[in-house]
């Protein structure tokens, strides 16, 4: 039995189907991210778990108890908001103590717990300050401390870092992950930032248009995307559209790509071949045939990305991107002819839905 279970949850606003048949099991102590483009229903799902929205259909269970219609203040579920939502009229200490006060915790215990969580987020010396006297990153850490002080059964975070600048964002996400695993608290983390989701999650739930596209570990999501949406949303993938031509071959316009055995497909079926740019080698002279698929093209763009340089290569009315290391990039210039090569094993073939 999973700890938090959503079963066939639906939610419609007017004529927008915000969440469509959402079923998910979340195990105790895990950090699960909801990842998807803006408007795909992440927040709505999170708010249904918190109790701020009611599902039109379906149930939500927490620790074997049906909480679908339990009011938010009875759920024991903590929440961290994008806009921090600290109470401006209260000091940091009062903010953190608020939940404990609502629970009628004895004074001595409150003091102890506040100190404890302040220690956890490493902001002990801010206890007497007011929210407006803190930086955004500090405010969000206090908001996290406030949510954790009551020891909730589940912690929900809705894009907690998107209002912060890049440096703070990276530091704070590590901090969140550290605290989450120290406390082994079941956590749902909403983000539209794939790097964030991949770097801190036990499980990633990729969503599009209110529908779950794929659930898996970050590695699974990246290495074995199950839909074209996941493959292109997570990282970058070159797409070659064509028809199945043989038992391990796809015929694209003016190009034949050898792939793994295509036992799940019928001959002539419309498919797309997906290849990640980092799995493509770039050669300045024509490689031997054992390099696998070889495509000749002209370098159109060279974009420096730090550790790698991304080439945009024009071939056959299509732009193919390939990543190369900075060193090998030195020998490549614009408008040069190059040969891209990739092994059949790195090709991911997917059916194209009509």
């Amino acid at each position, binding site marked *: 039995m999973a700890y938090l279970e959503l079963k066939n949850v639906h939610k419609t606003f007017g004529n927008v189907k915000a969440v469509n048949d959402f079923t998910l099991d979340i195990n105790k102590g895990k950090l699960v991210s909801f990842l998807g483009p803006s408007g795909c229903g992440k927040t709505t799902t999170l708010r249904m778990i918190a109790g701020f929205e009611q599902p039109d259909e379906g149930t939500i269970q927490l620790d074997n108890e049906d909480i679908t219609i339990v009011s*938010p203040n009875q759920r024991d579920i903590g*929440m961290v*908001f994008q806009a921090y939502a600290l*109470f*401006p009229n209260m000091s940091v200490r009062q903010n953190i103590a608020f*939940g404990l006060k*609502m*629970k009628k915790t004895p004074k001595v215990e409150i003091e102890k717990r506040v100190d404890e969580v302040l220690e956890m987020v490493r902001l002990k010396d801010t206890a007497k300050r007011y929210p*407006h006297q803190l930086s955004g990153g500090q405010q969000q850490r206090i908001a996290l401390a406030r949510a954790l002080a009551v020891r909730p059964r589940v912690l929900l975070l809705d894009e907690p870092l998107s209002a912060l600048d890049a440096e703070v964002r990276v530091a704070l996400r590590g901090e969140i992950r550290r605290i989450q695993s120290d406390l082994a608290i079941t956590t749902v983390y909403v983000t539209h930032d794939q790097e964030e989701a991949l770097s801190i999650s036990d499980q990633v739930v990729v969503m599009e248009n209110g529908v779950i596209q794929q659930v898996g570990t970050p590695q699974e999501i990246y290495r074995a995307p199950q839909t074209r949406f996941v493959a292109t949303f997570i990282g970058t993938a070159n797409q070659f559209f064509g028809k199945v031509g043989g038992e391990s071959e796809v015929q694209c316009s003016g190009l034949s790509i050898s792939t793994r055995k295509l036992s799940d497909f019928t001959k002539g079926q419309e498919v797309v071949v997906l290849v990640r740019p980092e799995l493509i080698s770039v050669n300045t002279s024509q490689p031997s045939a054992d390099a696998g698929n070889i495509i000749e093209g002209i370098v159109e763009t060279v974009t420096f990305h730090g550790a790698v340089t991304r080439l945009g290569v024009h071939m056959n009315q299509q732009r193919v991107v390939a990543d190369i290391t900075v060193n090998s990039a030195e020998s490549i210039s614009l408008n040069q002819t190059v040969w891209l090569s990739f092994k059949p094993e790195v090709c991911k073939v997917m059916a194209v839905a009509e």
Partner: protein
Amino acid sequence: MRMNKLFRSIVLVLFLLFMLVPLIATFLFSISTRWDRTILPEGFTLEWWKKVISRGAFGLTLKNSFYISFATSIALTILVTPTAYWVHIRAPKSKVIFEIMSAFSFGIPGVILALALIRFYSGIPVPLINTTNILLLACMELCFPFMYRPVANALDSIDIHTLTEASQSLGGNWISTFIHVILPNIFPGIASGFLLVFSTVFAEFTLTNLLVGARFKTFPIYLVEFTRFDGRQASALAIISFVVAWVVSLLLLLISGKRTITSDNLTIGH
């Protein structure tokens, strides 16, 4: 730059003169022996003040006015603040109704409002006609927008939705959320609403005169009655009335000023 500054000073001085001259003149008149044949008063005396204050009606009407002003302000605060919060958070569409209701008391002349209220209250089974309570209700209706507007503005200026949800996720119910989270953050709005209502009711004449004028005399009624036979005593009363409104304003600004320092946190914090 210099011209600009000069211009601003001139405007300010003119404005102050415009506001203060009538007040000063009223005050001078109330302490003058005679001021109808000369440019400046012929002499000064405290006689009118002594006379007007020593009358029994003075204390009584002042007390009545304080009573009705406080009662209206407090009743409206208690009625409007939670309602406005609820409307903003749970029924934002019905805000329109409140806006329309706010326009009523501006749009309808006091005489019509008073007569309409008398007709309405005489038609309902609760005996309200000819009681002070009818005045309280009428003043509440008249002053509703003065309370609602500042409170609604204060609610709009903070993120009440997220604050409410944050409070709920920490175990707060509607009442504790309202008291501990919402109220302190909209306090300046409530204070200015209270102030506007208080000073409006304290100076209210038309409704009071028509509804309960014969039996429940308030300070403005007393004042108007005085103007009929002695302008100097009436002037003394006018000054007192002004000072009362001014002191109440000052007190409230003092209280809300203290609170604003902490409630600023919100707007800056975001």
